[in-house]
């Protein structure tokens, strides 16, 4: 197939995937949280089970007036949601959904490096939103997000290094193939890495127990305070698409990606990956409705005093065992 045609089709598919995964994850959160709290949750929108609730919400957001506060920094304020969205979309480019070349946006040689790097751009958008809103609550929220990024980027990346050492490649596709070749997922050997990755990813996604940048009981809604309508929708979609993206990366790195014992059909790959991803997304949602939130200084000390040393120890042990065995 023509390279540019293929690229165009893939781009369209990925741009369609982001809102779809966001809506599915968001709907799952609404329903799961309801059942955890002895409620029913959305029920009427879309005839059965309220499946169309988030679509209705999205349409509502589109109808809202676009409000920019007077003392906001207008260009930065408008650019911030776009930045967040771009980083989310870009992460989807390197997630392999199957063995064929058509099932991945682009099989970059440094796929995991690219994913880690581009996903941090989203926090930059959060920082921009907090800075430009002209609101003190937003400012504190944005700066908290910045502090969180610096603290948790390290355990996130270091948690992955163990996998990279074991697989011997940075390519996402290569990591999946390495797991299939050895017959079991890296979660068995890199459980410390998985643990670190999940905790750090929660912090990167600003999810409970690390949702201080939003912290609705302290900062109203943190950096989102001044956003409404379509711009808020961007943040909202990016948040839920991010849950999917991080869960998909974790599933790829630690749970064997699109591979499963005894399944070799090419069409099964996407389903296996999505099933694993939603299992991890469930954990993320479950945490949100169970835990209170940490304090900012507790988050920092958790990262620097526990997670980073643990990650370094994990890397050292993995490297030694890799050489010895």
């Amino acid at each position, binding site marked *: 197939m023509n390279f540019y045609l293929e690229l165009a089709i893939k781009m369209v598919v990925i741009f369609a995937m982001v809102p779809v995964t966001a809506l599915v994850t968001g709907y799952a959160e609404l329903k799961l*949280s309801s059942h*955890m*709290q*002895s*409620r029913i949750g959305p029920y009427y929108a879309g005839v059965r089970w309220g499946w169309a609730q988030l679509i209705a919400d999205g349409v509502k957001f589109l109808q809202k007036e676009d409000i920019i506060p007077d003392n906001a920094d207008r260009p930065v304020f408008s650019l911030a949601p776009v930045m967040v969205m771009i980083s989310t979309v870009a992460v989807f480019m390197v997630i392999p959904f199957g063995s064929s070349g058509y099932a991945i946006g682009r099989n970059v040689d440094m796929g995991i490096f690219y994913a880690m790097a581009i996903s941090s751009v989203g926090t930059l958008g959060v920082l921009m939103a907090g800075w430009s809103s002209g609101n*003190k*609550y937003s400012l*504190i929220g944005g700066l908290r997000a910045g502090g969180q990024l610096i603290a948790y980027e390290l355990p996130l990346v270091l948690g992955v290094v163990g996998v990279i050492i074991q697989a011997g490649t940075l390519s996402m596709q290569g990591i999946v193939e390495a797991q299939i070749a050895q017959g079991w997922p890296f979660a068995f050997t890199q459980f410390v890495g998985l643990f670190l990755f999940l905790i750090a990813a929660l912090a990167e996604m600003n999810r*409970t*127990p690390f*949702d*201080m940048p939003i*912290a*609705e*009981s*302290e*900062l*109203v809604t943190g950096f989102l305070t001044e956003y409404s309508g379509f711009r808020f929708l961007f943040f909202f979609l990016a948040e839920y698409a991010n849950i999917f993206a991080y869960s998909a990366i974790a599933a790829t790195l630690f749970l064997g990606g699109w591979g499963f014992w005894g399944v070799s059909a090419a069409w099964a790959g996407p389903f296996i990956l999505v099933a694993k991803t939603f299992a991890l997304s469930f954990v993320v949602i479950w945490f*949100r*409705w*169970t*835990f*209170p*939130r*940490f*304090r*900012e*200084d*507790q988050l920092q000390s958790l990262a620097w005093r526990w997670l980073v040393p643990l990650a370094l120890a994990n890397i050292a042990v993995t490297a030694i065992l890799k050489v010895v065995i």
Partner: protein
Amino acid sequence: MNVDPMMHLADAAISLELETPEMTLNVGPQHPSTHGVLRLKARIDGERIIDVDPVIGYMHRGYEKLAEVRTYPQIIALLNRIDWVSGYANEIPFVVGAERLMEVEPPPRAQYIRLILTEMARIASHFLFMASYPMELGAASPFFFAFRERERVLDLIESVTGGRFHPNFNRVGGVKPAAGAGSTTKTVIQDLPAGFYAETRIAMDKVLAVCDELDDLIVGNEILHARTKGVGVMTAELAASYGVSGPNLRASGVEFDLRRTEDYLPYEDFDFWVPTGENGDCYDRYVMRVHEIRESAKMILAAIDGIPSGPIIAKVPKVIKLPKGEIYMRAESPKGEVGYYLVSEGGTGPYRLVVRTASFSNVSVLPVLLEGVLVPDLVAIFGSFDFVLGDVDR
């Protein structure tokens, strides 16, 4: 004129040090976790609070003045609007004070009904705290668990009094005949609705069960401990000097409970535990309420077993007139000490009614505790005091 130019250079050198300007953060009056319209003017340096100036009065409704132009039965309807979360408990000291002035003794059955409803109001009020405090710390789910059982208790209060929040059920000399019982049946058993005892037993078992559930869900949570233990420590001396009362005072280790010391309701018939904390931190203030819910539920179960029969209202004239005199009557409301200083010049209404509410004193200690803490702790500390703004401003 003879300014040494070198002095400016010296000043410039000093100002090269990193200076972070202070910022004023207005928490409230419209803020998700100030329980209404409390305003905290906080001067902050980064996330560190330098000092806090609470501004109250946004909800002042002038109850003391309103009481001067109303009759005694009308005032009872006013008083349960001061702290609407535990409306019933606020009526009690006023009617008891009026009865003492009139030298009327309410019949024992009426006293037991008052006690049951007061403890139910305590459970309802504490459940509101159990719901909202984890929310302030970022955990949303306990809210629904606590509110589900609170609704059960409010249903019981409603079945007796006809009102969930504003029962207006007390009369000088006893309690009102239950809704639908009619004025001629004051002396028979119809004062409590049919099935009240059975439903209370079911509800109290559920309340005790949900306390255990909340223990598993949130009270034992490590993150909650990290957020609340050692945060906002209030010493017993500090608490006493600001007139803090109720569970907040007991959390600081002072065993002071007006249910023990004042004889406004037949509490001496019951054997109940007054929990006290050790450290006076947010965690202690939080678990105080869980313990008190359990004790109240047990007390209600004992009270419906031992409730005496008989009339529910003493013989009082149709028009309530108090003799000349004055009395200060206080009681243990869920928030702490609520007291009414009642001055009567004779006649159908008071000459003056001074209202002492618990939340006002409890809020006044906030600036001391909030000095030097972080912004997240600000919410954790003022949330732990369980105040209601209507109770602060009156």
